[in-house]
């Protein structure tokens, strides 16, 4: 992999995405072994730098690094020099001086990992920045869909909910469209980023098409629809996003009750999608609000597998960033 950092999926080619996903297949095989530990990152120091609360992403990165035999150091905003007013740039320079080989960063402000990456010789992986990007979530979502459906090409992916504030949605959009899928964003207009369709179309144009597949030839790679019942028709994948109560306080939707009435993934709605369509959620879920419990734990749900796959994908990414080759067995 010819890059220092993974900050978003917007600059990944279809070939690069496929390289990571292929490598993650090998890593998933490692995870199925009785002893999950392999040696490629022995002697490397990986710093997990989380400025926001997180369970699954932080633990997933830590396990992925340990499975590759790296040494892992965890930093959180509370209990570190951040509480003493140390700036992000200072923290980055400190990590550089301490000799970190790879830095995983989760930060509440969009773009913060770019600032860190410029200060560091070490590899930087974005574990979620503000509303902007969550590339490893995007990769694990791609991995999960590809594993279940064989290919992304021509598939219809519906992402439902608060797209405006969602870094998961933004990274998923780049990943899915680059591999030839069509993405429909569904949610209240108040939670849609103004100009998102133009943004993606422009980004894909500059990237040189969406992976050379047919999806954008007839349809826009991304479109917005407010009516979930219509949006889910013929969908191959339906993904709910977490809705936060504070968006109601900001006047963006009237009540969780009405939100749920319009945008909850229910059995009736999933029944309108393709037979056997996948149900996904990046977690943590608000059951009964954006997703009905029987759907979340139903046969079409791959939500728990997303979490498992997250470890494999993060192992693959760290392995490749550290100079590993996807065609070599681990």
């Amino acid at each position, binding site marked *: 992999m010819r890059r220092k950092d993974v900050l978003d999926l*917007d*600059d990944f080619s279809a070939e690069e995405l496929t390289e990571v996903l292929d490598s993650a297949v090998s890593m998933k095989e490692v995870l199925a072994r009785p002893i999950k530990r392999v040696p490629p990152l022995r002697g490397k120091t990986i710093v997990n730098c989380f400025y926001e609360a997180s369970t699954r992403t932080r633990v997933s990165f830590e396990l992925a690094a340990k499975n590759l035999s790296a040494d892992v150091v965890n930093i959180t905003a509370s209990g570190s020099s951040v509480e003493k007013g140390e*700036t*992000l*740039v200072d923290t980055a320079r400190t990590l550089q001086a301490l000799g970190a080989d790879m830095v995983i960063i989760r*930060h509440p*402000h*969009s*773009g*913060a990992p*770019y*600032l860190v990456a*410029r200060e560091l010789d070490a590899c930087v992986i974005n574990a979620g*920045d*503000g*509303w*902007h*990007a969550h590339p490893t979530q995007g990769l694990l979502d791609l991995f999960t869909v590809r594993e279940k459906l064989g290919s992304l090409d021509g598939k219809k992916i519906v992402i439902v909910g608060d797209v405006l504030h969602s*870094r998961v949605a*933004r990274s998923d959009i780049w990943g899915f469209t680059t591999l030839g899928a069509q993405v429909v964003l569904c949610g209240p207009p108040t939670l849609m*980023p*103004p*100009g*998102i369709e*133009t*943004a*993606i179309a*422009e*980004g894909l144009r*500059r990237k040189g098409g969406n992976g050379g597949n047919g999806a954008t030839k007839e349809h826009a790679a991304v479109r917005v629809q407010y009516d979930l019942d219509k949006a889910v028709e013929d969908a191959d994948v339906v993904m709910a996003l977490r809705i936060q109560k504070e968006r109601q306080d900001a006047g963006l939707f009237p009540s969780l009750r009405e939100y749920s009435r319009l945008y909850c993934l229910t059995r009736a709605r999933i029944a309108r999608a393709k037979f056997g369509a996948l149900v996904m959620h990046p977690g943590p879920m608000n059951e009964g609000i954006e997703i009905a419990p029987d759907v979340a734990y139903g046969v079409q749900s791959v939500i728990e597998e997303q979490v498992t796959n997250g470890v494999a994908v993060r192992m693959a990414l760290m392995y490749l960033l550290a100079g590993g080759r996807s065609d070599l067995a681990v």
Partner: protein
Amino acid sequence: MVAVATKPLMGDTRSGHAAPVLIRGGRVVDPANGIDGVMDVLLVDGKVAEVRQGLGIPAGGRTIDADGLVVAPGLVDLHAHLREPGFEYKETIESGTRAAAAGGYTTLCCMPNTEPALDTAAAVEFVRRTAKATGYVRVYPIGAITKGRKGKQLAEMAELAEAGAVAFSDDGDCVENSAMMRSALEYSLIVRRPIVQHAEDKALTAGAQMNEGPVAARLGLKGWPRQGEEVIVARDVLLAELTGAHLHVAHLSTAGSIEYVRRAKQRGLRVTAEATPHHLTLTDDLVAGHWWSATASLAPYDASTKVNPPLRTNEDSAALVAALNDGTIDCVATDHAPHGVSDKHCEYALAASGISNIETALGQLLSVVHAGKMGLAEMVATMTSRPAAVFGLPAGTLSAGATADVVIFDPEREWCVDPQQMFSKGKNTPLAGHFLRGQALFTLVGGEVVHEH
């Protein structure tokens, strides 16, 4: 780069001892007098003595050969942040006026968002006194509209005006309350000085980081919609009509705002407006850096692109240039906003807003001229006679008897913007590493050279 400067005595009345200066053979552009041709300019006793062809060299005087150069009235800026008192690490009156001289400016009006704010006669007098003692160019303070710039109680405008405030503004903050804005406009009739509004409906711009649109959508940054400016411009135009007062709209950034100003002018209201070099020439795709533009050298989220109001789109900047050309927008104003390194080298959302641009403004405006979108004489007018007229300042002309404030610039000279070479303490410019075509070579205040390149 060699730059020489002497600091003149900035008394209320010029010393009058400046040696005569003959500026020979330049293209003299003096829009106030309709002059645009190759001739000589003679400065004697700190005043413009004569402008015509074939002037002789005065005894004991200096001759500046301006062959191939443009000789114009010193540039006039209605909107600069000098940061003193309170934020001397960002800029001082000395460093800011030195930067202004390097940019070709001889007169600037400084905004009152200092600490303390310029809301008392003492604070206004402090700025004038410090400018006299340490400044390189003429400084006219702008007083606060409200005490502490908090929008609650009117500042003592009459006393501020007596102390030397040439206009009033809460710049950086909008006077949001409609009744307060009405009062400010009405009360300003006593002193007959303009109310300068920073138009921003904060409910629409809460947490906003950049222009709302595709680039913000991609970057995951909260958008600052154009309407956040336009609702205030529209309201203020109505209040200007109600009160008959002089409303000056600061840093217009959207095509929509222009229409409200145009309608106000058509109705004969006393409404004027300014646009900044960055809103005239830069757009929001810079925030995405090299992601969006193949030619951009900036990294994504470079906070040097953060400014309030934010950089907009091509349609907006084209409309601003057109409105500047047709007179709907009266003048260029820099909104020079210097910041310290740590104010900008941080997360985008935490970064301070503003661009340090008083040294690049002329080159930026000349890029509009070089692109064929504006005539050179018109450009000079928008930076000299037209801003001077908005605030009624005794500046911006080479009329005989006028103070000898002159800029001599080379409209063709290419130079690379290097923040470390800038005189301003604020190195915050998104133009770092860019080439500009056109630069001030001599700046004279009261007949004395305050900057020589």
